[in-house]
C-alpha cells in the first residue's frame, strides 16, 4: 500500500488543496465540460441549437448540440455565478462523459471560481490515483457522482466496494445517486460505511424526487449523510412531477426536524439549455432565485449560510485517510 498524501481538513480543488472556509457559496453537482451525447440515444442528425428548438429540448428531447458543454460555452455563466457571490462548483462529469481536467483547471483560473472535480470510474486503485495524483497534476476532490447502483448486480456491487475502499484510503467525500428504492439506498449507505467511508462525507444525490416524502428524506439525513437536491431550476412542464417549490418546502421541513446540516443544493446544469446563454437558469440559480425564495418563506441568514456554504464546505473537506 502506497503512503498517501494526507489531505485531511482540506478541500481538493483543481488548483490544489484549499482551506474549506475559502469556498463560500458552492453548488454541489453540475457539469462544466462534458460530452453527454456520446452515451445518449439521439433523435436525428445534429442541428444548430437555435432559439426555436429550445421548447422541444425543454421537454427532454435529446439532441447532440444540446448535450455537450465546452469551456467556451460555460465561461460566461461561471463568471456570472462568481458575480452573484458563487465561490465554488462541484463538477461531476465522469471520464466516460468527457471529463477534461486541464480545461476545468483553466476555467477555474479564468473565472476565480474554485472547481472540485469528481472521479467516478474504475477500480479503487484508479479512484485513489485520481484523488492523489490526478491527471496532468489536476486532482479529483471527490468520488462521484456514482450510480444509481443496483447492488443485486455484481458489477454495481463491485463499484460500491471500490468507492468505499477509495474513500477509506483517501478520506475523500463521496456522491452517490439515490438508488431505485429507499431500502436499496439504505443498503448502499450500509455498504459504503461498512467499507470505511465516513457517513458525514457521503452525499446522496437526486433526492428531488423525494421532496414530497419528508419522512424518507429525514431517514436518510438521520444516517448522518447529506441529502442533495440537484435538479433545481426546473420550468413547469407536465414531465416534472416535482417542482422547485416542493424542494424548498422539503428543505424547510428537514431543517425544522433538525437536519439543516445534512442538506446540499445545486441547480441542474448538464446541457446547454441549462446555461443562461441558451435561456437557462445557470450555475447562479441557487443564489439568484432559490435563496430569495427561501428568504421569502422566512428563512434566516444563518440557515441560508448553512445550506449554501457551510454544508458543501464540510462535505468536501477530506477526513483522515485510513490505509
Amino acid at each position, binding site marked *: 500500500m502506497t503512503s498517501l498524501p494526507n489531505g485531511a481538513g482540506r478541500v481538493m480543488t483543481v488548483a490544489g488543496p484549499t482551506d474549506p472556509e475559502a469556498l463560500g457559496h458552492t453548488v454541489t453537482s453540475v457539469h462544466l465540460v462534458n460530452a453527454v451525447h456520446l452515451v445518449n440515444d439521439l433523435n436525428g442528425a445534429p442541428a444548430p441549437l437555435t*432559439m426555436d428548438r429550445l421548447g422541444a429540448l425543454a421537454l427532454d428531447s435529446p439532441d447532440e448540440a444540446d448535450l455537450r458543454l465546452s469551456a467556451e460555452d460555460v465561461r460566461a455563466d461561471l463568471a456570472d455565478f462568481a458575480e452573484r457571490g458563487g465561490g465554488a462548483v462541484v463538477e461531476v462529469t465522469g471520464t466516460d462523459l468527457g471529463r477534461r481536467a486541464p480545461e476545468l483547471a483553466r476555467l477555474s483560473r479564468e473565472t476565480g471560481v474554485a472547481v472540485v472535480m469528481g472521479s467516478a470510474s474504475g477500480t479503487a486503485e484508479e479512484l485513489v490515483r485520481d484523488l492523489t495524483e490526478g491527471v496532468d497534476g489536476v486532482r479529483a476532490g471527490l468520488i462521484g457522482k456514482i450510480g444509481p447502483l443496483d447492488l443485486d448486480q455484481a458489477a454495481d456491487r463491485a463499484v460500491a466496494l471500490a468507492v468505499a475502499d477509495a474513500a477509506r484510503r483517501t478520506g475523500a467525500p463521496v456522491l452517490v445517486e439515490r438508488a431505485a428504492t429507499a431500502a436499496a439506498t439504505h443498503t448502499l449507505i450500509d455498504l459504503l460505511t461498512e467499507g470505511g467511508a465516513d457517513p458525514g462525507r457521503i452525499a446522496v444525490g437526486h433526492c428531488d424526487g423525494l421532496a414530497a416524502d419528508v419522512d424518507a428524506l429525514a431517514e436518510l439525513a438521520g444516517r448522518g449523510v447529506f441529502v442533495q437536491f440537484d435538479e433545481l431550476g426546473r420550468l*413547469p412542464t407536465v414531465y*416534472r412531477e416535482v417542482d422547485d417549490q*416542493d424542494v424548498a418546502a422539503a428543505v424547510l421541513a428537514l431543517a425544522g426536524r433538525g437536519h439543516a446540516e445534512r442538506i446540499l443544493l445545486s441547480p441542474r446544469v448538464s446541457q446547454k439549455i441549462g446555461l*443562461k446563454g441558451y435561456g437557462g437558469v445557470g450555475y447562479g440559480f441557487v443564489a439568484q*432565485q432559490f435563496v430569495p425564495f427561501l428568504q421569502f418563506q422566512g428563512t434566516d441568514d444563518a440557515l441560508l449560510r448553512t445550506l449554501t456554504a457551510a454544508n458543501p464546505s464540510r462535505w468536501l473537506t477530506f477526513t483522515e485517510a485510513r490505509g
Partner: protein
Amino acid sequence: MTAPQTIPDLNGQVLTVTGPVDPSTLGATTMHEHLFLDLRRPPQSLRPGENEPQAREPLTMANLARTRHGAVNADNDVFDDFGMMLAEVDEFRRAGGGTIVEVTNLGIGRDPASLHRMARESGLNIVMGAGWYTPTFHPLDMDERTVDDLTDVIVRDIVEGADGTGVRAGIIGEVGAETDPLTSAELRSVRASGRASRITGAPISFHVGGVGEEKFAVLDILDEEGVDPSNVVMGHAGTMAVDLAFARRILARGVFIEFDFVASPGSPWGHLVLLGDHKVARGIADLVEEGYAGQIVLGHDVCQKIQLKRYGGQGYSYIPDHFLPALRRLGVADEAIHAIMVDNPARALTFAAPAPSRG
C-alpha cells in the same frame, strides 16, 4: 353614447370574427390566448427598467434567460408579426385544434382586422374579446366612466364590431379583476361586463375575477346583472388545482374554471412561484373524478414572445401535444377530455338570449 337600439338574437350561436357559427362546429378549443397584443406598459405605469436600453433590445438568445426571469423587454410584450403568428397558430391546427378564444381587449393592442385575416388564413375559428383588462391598462379617464357608459362600449363591440372594422367580439374578456381588494374601476368594469352580457347574451371570461373570497362578490354582481353562470369563465384558476375545497365552492356557482397558464417559460418572481403543470394536471384529474368534468376549460395564455415556439416556448400546441396526454396518464377518460376541450368551450361560448338590462 347610447346602446344600439336593436340587439341581434344570437341565442344558441357562437360569434366568431367571421360571423356566428353553430357551437357544434368549433372542435377542440383553447379558451384563453392572445394572437395580437401589446402589453408594453403605458407611460403612467412603467415597470422598473422599462426605460433602460436593455429593455429595448430585440428578444434574442442573448437576453432570453433574463427575460424569462422577468426583465422587461419591449419586444417580448408585442405580438404583431402576422406571418410568425400564423406559423405559431398553425401548430394548434396541426394538433387537431379548431377554435381559439382570443381574449385581448381594450388597452392591450386588440387587432380586429388581423384576427379576421388570421381566421381566414389559418382555417381556425377565432373568437375576439371585449371590455377592459387590468387597471394598469385602463384609460386615464376610467374613474369618470359610469357602468352604463362602459356597458355601451362593450355592447357596440359585440353588436356593431370593434374600431369601425365590423369585426364583432364574441366574448367579454379577459375582464381584469385582480386587485386585492378590487378597485372601484374594476368593480364597475365587472358590472358593466355583466350588464353587457345580459343585454347581448355574450359570454364573459375573467382575468382572476377577484382574489380569493372576492371571487364570490364578483359572481354576486353577475347574478345581480342576470348573467347565466354557464356563460362565465373564471380564468387563471391554477391555484384551485391545489385547493380543491375552494374550487368546489366556485364550481357550486355553476361557472367554468379555466386552467390557463401551463408551460410557463418563467416569471418575474423567479421560477419558484410558478405552479407546476403536474400539480395542475393532478388537480384537474381529481376534479374530474369528483364529477366536475363539465365545468373545466383550458388555455395556454400565450401573452409573451417567450411563450412562442419561435422564442423557445411551447406555443399553442402544448395542451394537445403534452398536457392532454398527461391527463390521460392520470386516468382522465377520453370522454372527460372531450368535454374539457370541445363540449365545455362550446357551451361557454354559446350566446344566451338577449335580455333588457336590469340596471
